[in-house]
């Protein structure tokens, strides 16, 4: 058997995580009512990133998995951010 020290998360933890995600959703919606012009996209993306971080860490169990999983996720996201960066570098300086 390969069942090594399984972590059982309490229901309440997920309840709080859900609550936090709903609060963040409310903030995202409220922020769009305020006109931040150029910053709107940035703020929306920042809140979405915080939400994804919570989903990845708690719902997707990265917090309790081996570090290897987190390293992989960070690598993939870094590559993706690099691609976005390079694309805009090319696009804006054409």
């Amino acid at each position, binding site marked *: 058997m390969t069942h090594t020290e399984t972590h059982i998360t309490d229901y309440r933890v997920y309840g709080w995580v859900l609550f936090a995600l709903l609060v963040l959703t409310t903030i*995202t*919606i409220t922020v769009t009512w305020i006109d931040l012009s150029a910053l709107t*996209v940035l703020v929306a993306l920042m809140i979405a990133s915080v939400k994804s971080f919570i*989903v990845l860490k708690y*719902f997707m169990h990265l917090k309790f998995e081996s570090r290897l999983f987190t390293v*992989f996720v960070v690598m993939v996201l870094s590559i*993706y951010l690099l*691609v976005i960066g390079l694309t*805009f570098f090319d696009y804006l300086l054409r």
Partner: protein
Amino acid sequence: MEIHRDDIGARLGMWLFIFTEILLFGGLFLVYAVMRHRYSVEFHQAAHQLNAFIGTVNTVVLLLSSATVAMSITAVQRGEKRKGVLLLFITLLCAGVFLFNKYLEWGHKISIGLYPGSDMMIGLKHGYILFFSLYFFMTGLHMLHLVVGSIILTIVMLKIQTGSINPGKYTLLENGGLYWHLVDLIWIFLFPLLYLIT
């Protein structure tokens, strides 16, 4: 004789698959980003056509469904079979609500002639065509994932019921859950980028 099993390996495999999905949607988000930069005014105006209320309801529904999937893992680990099945059933119900809302949303757009390739859409400005094409393609692909996820979770739910997913063996539930959270994760970005930035 004991059959060899590698749960961590199975989950790692699922994660590798999720990475390919992230890059698939990532490509679309990249197109969105560049086109939004190029046609910022038109994207801005076109987004007003989307129903932010339905978008918000679907966001809440998806978050709730993600929480219940996560909770069902706890239930199965603790051997609370009925609870596990019930929680997954709530998830599937949420998926149904999501799809129904999408039906209303898309149905309305199609009824007024707004869909890729329609006469109305061809007549629109370039930025509008791009926005609505991306909207239909990205939410459509997301919806396809949601349908697939629902099928997987239905199978998982039945397997919990029959006992082939049990406190000693529940990797399929974990991997199905990971897939479902991915669907949620993508929506977390789709929602503000398509519906809210008006």
